[in-house]
């Protein structure tokens, strides 16, 4: 087991060697989490290596949350479904990756500008498991060598940025050994409390994306003075944990990018584009210290042909990324709205993970009946959620011309009225 604490998102890699000690073949492996961790669990992935030696490929396995009736202390379960059932006495190696958000607690909870940020991380020396553990070693990687303290569960030692627990032999199911690590983590805790992404499809060739962010620095709260002179002259010492800029990775061929908030344009942003990706570096109006907030909007246009495709049965579908384009950012609540063109029918969304869905109607320029909006909501997202989703719908191209025709006829009527006015004498007297 490896725990990576270098950013505020906790990444845990498990390499499990499971052995079927029972008598019947099984294809299910249970993972268990204590309830405090389960609340902060953003994603669980399981992979299995196939092939021998150099020609190994990773195959993704299905992972589903499971409820067990006799769970001790409200432990939460995930079931990994193996591709090939494991016969009695056989063993297999499974790689599991899970990410935890909001799992590093700043202590002290309030720091001054010149102090660096210290956090607590709580876990168990060995994993909580419904199975018997024969042997386990845990490596914990800290962002710097500055570790205030860590719980000793012999054998354990620290070297550089790594703390090693174990190897431990023979632990009973559901045994638990709490550990507490107190260390320095000056990486900014960028948390987007709420993000609304609106993707508007125009069949005239443009895909307009508007993203509304509520960003907060979720690290140790800033206390007392903010001194600009210190911040400008010694930036590494003063405000080490502050959030200065964010990097957003946008699709290639992005155009008309804007970055603004309720009171206007924010001029501190840079866009770098190449043929494979675009990177937008944005600075909030002010550096974010612990507990400080900023709201802003990013918008950009994309060429439609990169994202909109037709199926064989004459339906269209949008293929777009789901998550937040900002790097190393946790999103507490994400709402993705796909605004379909006016006149589209039978929308349906395909998302690789469970989301809440409903439909809305939006009125934009010159809309008469309104546009159908597919709304998808999900909580607790990490950058690995940036996978693609699809929205299928049917659309008749004739609807494209409704609005230009409306405009044209309005102008036509206006000119006809002008001509009529000039040619008809409306006066009563002669």
């Amino acid at each position, binding site marked *: 087991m490896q725990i990576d604490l270098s950013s505020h998102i906790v990444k845990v890699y498990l390499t499990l060697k499971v052995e079927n000690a029972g008598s019947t073949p099984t294809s299910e492996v249970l993972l268990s989490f204590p309830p405090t961790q389960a609340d902060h669990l953003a994603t669980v992935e399981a992979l299995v290596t196939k092939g021998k030696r150099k020609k190994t490929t990773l195959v993704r396995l299905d992972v589903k949350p499971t409820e067990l009736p006799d769970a001790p202390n409200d432990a939460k379960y995930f079931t990994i479904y193996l591709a090939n059932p494991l016969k009695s006495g056989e063993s297999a190696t499974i790689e599991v990756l899970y990410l935890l958000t909001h799992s590093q607690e700043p202590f002290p909870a309030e720091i001054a500008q010149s102090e660096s940020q210290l956090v607590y991380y709580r876990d168990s020396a060995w994993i909580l498991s419904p199975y018997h553990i024969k042997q386990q070693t845990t490596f914990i990687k800290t962002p710097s060598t500055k570790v205030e303290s860590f719980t000793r569960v012999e054998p354990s030692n620290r070297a550089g940025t790594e703390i090693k627990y174990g190897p431990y032999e023979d632990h009973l199911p559901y045994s638990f050994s709490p550990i507490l690590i107190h260390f320095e983590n000056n990486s900014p805790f960028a948390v987007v409390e709420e993000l609304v992404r609106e993707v508007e499809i125009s069949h005239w060739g443009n895909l307009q994306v508007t993203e509304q962010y509520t960003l907060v620095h979720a690290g140790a709260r800033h206390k007392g*003075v*903010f001194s*600009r002179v210190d911040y400008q002259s010694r930036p590494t010492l003063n405000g080490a944990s502050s959030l200065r800029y964010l990097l957003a990775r946008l699709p290639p061929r992005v155009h008309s990018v804007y970055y603004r908030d309720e009171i*206007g*344009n924010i001029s501190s942003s840079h866009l770098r584009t190449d043929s494979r990706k675009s990177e937008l570096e944005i600075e909030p*109006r002010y550096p974010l210290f612990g507990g400080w907030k900023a709201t802003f909007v990013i918008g950009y246009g994309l060429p439609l042909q990169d994202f909109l495709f037709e199926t064989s049965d004459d339906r269209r579908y949008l293929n777009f990324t789901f998550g937040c384009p900002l790097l190393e950012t946790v999103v507490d609540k994400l709402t993705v709205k796909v605004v379909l063109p006016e006149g589209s029918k039978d929308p349906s969304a395909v998302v690789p993970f469970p989301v809440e869905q409903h439909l809305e109607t939006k*009125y*934009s320029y010159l809309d008469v009946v309104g546009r159908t909006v597919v709304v998808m909501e999900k909580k607790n997202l990490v950058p690995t959620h940036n996978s693609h989703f699809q929205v299928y719908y049917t659309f008749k191209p004739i609807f494209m011309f409704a609005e230009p025709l409306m405009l044209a006829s309005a102008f036509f009527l206006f000119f006809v009225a002008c001509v009529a006015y000039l040619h008809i004498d409306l006066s009563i007297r002669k």
Partner: protein
Amino acid sequence: MATMPASASDLLKSFKLKTKQQELLIRVSILCLVYILAFITRLFSVLRYESMIHEFDPYFNYRTTLYLTENGFYDFWNWFDYESWYPLGRIVGGTLYPGLMVTAVLIYRILRFLRFAVHIREVCVLTAPFFASNTTLVAYFFGKEIWDSGAGLVAAILIAICPGYISRSVAGSYDNEGVAIFALLFTFYVFVKAVNTGSLAWSLVSAFGYFYMVSAWGGYVFIINLIPLYVLVFYFLDWVKHMLSDTKLFQAFLRITVTCAVAVGGIALGLGMVSGYISPWTGRFYSLLDPTYAKDHIPIIASVSEHQPTAWSSFMFDFHILLFLFPAGLYFCFKRLSDATIFIVMYGLTSMYFAGVMVRLILVATPAVCLISAIAVSATVKNLTVLLRSKNKVVQTGSTKRSGGSQSSSKALLDQSQPFQKNGAIALLFGAFYLLSRYATHCTWVTSEAYSSPSIVLAARGAHGNRVIFDDYREAYFWLRQNTPQDAKVMSWWDYGYQITAMGNRTVIVDNNTWNNTHIATVGRAMSSYEDEAIEIIRSLDVDYVLVVFGGVTGYSSDDINKFLWMVRIGGGVFPVIKEPDYLVNGEYRVDKGAAPKMLNCLMYKLCYYRFGEMMTEYGKPPGYDRARGVEIGNKDVKLEHLEEAFTTSNWIVRIYRVKPPNNRCEI
């Protein structure tokens, strides 16, 4: 095949317009172009910066418009604003001119109804240019009414680009004047129309125009005073005509009536004021009658830059050649005296006087100046062209009479008869066009350089010629909005009040609606006292944050240190503890080592220069070198006891201090 050209020419003939239609077509297309020109020339700021609200007062108007769109008219009318003038509050609904906000919201609703998904901010930003375009139309009709349609067209063009009007109507300058000038000119136009036609319908329209004007701007008093004056003059002139037959009687009558009228008026005014029937005039009106009044008596009016008496240079800047055309136009008006021209002459002369008294009233004079100048231009050009054309006619008739070869001789004959007129006319015409083209270039230059900066975002040239943007105001206001408690009270000088409430969404102590002089003086007193005295005032006002604007790092000159003497004066006007000489050395205002000790230790000085002594601002200069005033500051070791630095923007333009909670009482 041979018939084809003939039928084509027939077709062409049938499409060919009559002269009258041609004239109409040209007139309509010129008006359309002027309409568009008036709109787009005001968009410099949008193109150069962004679609944003400018300056100070427009932010209040924008905030109220937002409130109106969100809560409806009834709530707007009854709105009591807790976010300004803490702890007094302000009855907003009853103390503003709602015309602008209602207009903007109406436009917004119409656009929304037509399914244009615009934001109210865009509507607010473009309201002033839109009304400026409408004003050009009114100017055309007005010019047509008082002179002819040629003068109307010229007036429309002149007013479309006149800097005096553009200064208050660029995109983003969302202020009352933007719609009020339209309302003013419209009311006058319809009034003159009513006078000329005697039609009741027009006078009714005029009344509605006046109603709109009253709802939009305090400048309506100009209309209500000008029209009676006009009627008086009108009657007087009529009477003069009538009485001219009997001179002796007329003179005697005049003497008696005038003295009686003046005496009765004076007594009535005096009695009314003493008994309180006539409320004493407010200071702004006094200063209109006596330009030196404000300077001596009311510092709060004198402190506003737009209330200063106008300098000749700004007349030149705002009117350019119109300043010379104006007297010429007056001459033409007197030459063809009619009811309409009497009115425009009176409007021009009175508004010119007011424009001379107060800079901001150049705006009121602008339409009159444009109209009268248009008369001058139109009449001159018309006279000249008539001269040219009549001669051409003679040439033509001459050439038709004599056939072929004798044409040149007839021309020579004509030239002999009027040797200078034709050349002179051509030269004058070219001169006029040259002047007008100079006017156009001047207007464009002024608009782009002087009147299109939002003053929220400051732009400067960097060392490499690139444009550097200082967006510190919004940085600070957004910081306040996001990172202070919802009910935090911010104390600043009144200039920034509207912006803090609109952009920072926080409660302020004083703002740009300077209705309570004592309250402003209290803030001025706090700023000019020593810290331990100021903290008493600050605590009594329940202030959480103090905001100051400081330009020492960037060289931004309209900051609080440069405004500080006004704070002292206004504070001293109410609280005699504050004395202006304490802050001056030999009548000189300075911040360096030679500054007055009270100056070096007052709260404003401390807040602006806190930790500035450690800062290197310019290469080759000592630390703590103030670039706005070009001196090294006198007190580099500023210590604050009751306040602490909460936020300073990246270029130090805005500095915000938090008021520390009182210390716990010592143990006994």
